[in-house]
């Protein structure tokens, strides 16, 4: 077996372990996003949305579909990696990877792919829920899928870094509660930033989630507050920085080696 063959088996072992993990507890991992999103559609889409009227030329319900789907992808990709990798640290079975002849990038890729897999599964489930409330005509399958995957990768990397630094289970819920949720809610899920005063529009541009939501909205609806090229550049730049930083942490053994 050559080196690349070994790496592939190691990667697919980590990935299948991760998929099995969240599949076994689907009631905790997949189902809640479906319920929450259905509530969003009922309350914001049907009850309040009809009073808000159209946004960017679309019914309010149609306008929030991309943001809600992406919000589920972001939350699930992040929480899958942060909880799985932190558990492996807490119960010390992270040592199973550390003693094995696998390079750090394979370990990282395995965990990130696990996060992406959960993000995609939940994203598809939420999209199916959305179909109960509205019809979705996808403007660009390529852009939609690419943003779907890249966003999941980015937040899976974020979850990995959070897990590396976490010392308690509380530490893995602080970032999602106080950073991730506000960024997502203020990232244009429920509104177009054109509605905001100039100052808040400028401030919103510092929020990376805004670029993802808008690129995804372009994929689904064909409208975006941000030019697509800039959105992809920002997403890819974040992925590059977080990947480099995650590999640096693994190389140094931060949080996992003595």
């Amino acid at each position, binding site marked *: 077996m050559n080196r690349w063959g070994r790496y592939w*088996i190691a990667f697919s072992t980590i990935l299948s372990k991760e998929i099995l993990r969240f599949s076994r507890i689907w009631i905790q991992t997949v189902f809640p996003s479906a319920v929450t999103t259905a509530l969003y559609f009922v309350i914001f889409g049907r009850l309040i949305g009809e009073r808000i009227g159209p946004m960017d030329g679309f019914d309010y319900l149609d306008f929030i579909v991309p943001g809600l789907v992406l919000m589920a992808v972001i939350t699930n990709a992040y929480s899958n990696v942060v909880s799985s990798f932190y558990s492996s640290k807490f119960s010390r079975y992270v040592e199973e990877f550390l003693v094995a002849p696998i390079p750090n990038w394979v370990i990282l890729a395995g965990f990130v792919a696990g996060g992406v897999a959960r993000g995609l599964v939940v994203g598809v489930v939420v999209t199916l829920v959305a179909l109960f409330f509205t019809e979705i005509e996808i403007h660009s399958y390529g852009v939609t899928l690419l943003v779907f995957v890249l966003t999941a990768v980015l937040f899976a990397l974020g979850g990995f870094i959070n897990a590396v630094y976490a010392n308690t289970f509380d530490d893995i819920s602080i970032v999602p509660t106080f950073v991730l949720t506000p960024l997502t809610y203020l990232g244009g899920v429920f509104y177009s930033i054109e509605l905001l005063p100039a100052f808040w529009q400028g401030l919103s541009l510092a929020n990376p989630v805004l670029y993802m939501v808008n690129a995804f909205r372009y994929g689904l609806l064909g409208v975006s507050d941000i030019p697509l090229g800039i959105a992809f550049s920002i997403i890819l730049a974040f992925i590059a920085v977080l990947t480099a930083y995650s590999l640096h942490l693994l190389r140094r053994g931060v949080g996992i080696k003595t």
Partner: protein
Amino acid sequence: MPALIVRNIRKVYRNGFEALKGVDLRVEDGDFFALLGPNGAGKSTLIGIVTSLVNKTEGHVEVFGHDLDREPEGVKSCLGLVPQEFNFNLFLPVVEVVLNQAGYYGIPRGEARERAEFYLRKLDLWGRRHLEMRVLSGGLKRRLMIARALVHRPRLLILDEPTAGVDIEIRRAMWTFLRELNAGGTTIILTTHYLEEAESLCRNIAIINGGRIAERAEMGALLRSLQTETFVLNLKGKVAELPELGGFVLEHVDDCTLEVEVDRDHSINGLFESLSRNGIEVISLRNKENRLERLFLDMVDNGKLEGDVS
């Protein structure tokens, strides 16, 4: 080619504590090697460095010719580790723990299944393969750690207190298994709290103390260096008064049991002759304490070792 070469290994923790102060060690291919020392002596730190779980401050590690700094994957491929503490995902079934470990070593699934079955049967775990880890007893978990460490067929197996908390029956079964494994060519390094385990299994020994190797010897030679041994004699009849035996110090335990200290200048044959001459008949005898334990205690008494003995 030596299984392990460790040269001038130092480990200084962030708080300034120097756990290893320049350790040199060589373990030959095929050896069954004991690494002993008091608690906090640096055994687990040294094992951690060799297995890439602890970053070294300085020094050189080589496993079957692979340099840890230049060829970490080569080193890891040759090593199997049974750590001191349980490190499992408690919600995984037994067989998946072994299959996943095989996957991390790049072993194809079909071959991994065959190997998992072989080692789980060997360690009497096959019947429990679908049970989740959390329902296993401590002894079964220990055995599973051995199966997991062997699934990639390492040339060097490091066992960090593998029988801690295991009942005597399972411990003996594990000894038999480890002997077979060593006879099959696997080099084994063992740390243990049970000194009779090290004495029974190992051919060579290193004693680490205060971050340095205090003793490195062949087990037989080390045991022969014992100055005195204490035996417990079970007698056929009661002995009210102890006879004076030249060269032997006798003590009553009870009417039918004696303790006798024999120094290395006298033989057990001489003891029996003297006892027979005094009309004392011995039914059985045993060492009062394990010989390696005696050596350890002597080293502590002589100031060569500090702290608890393990």
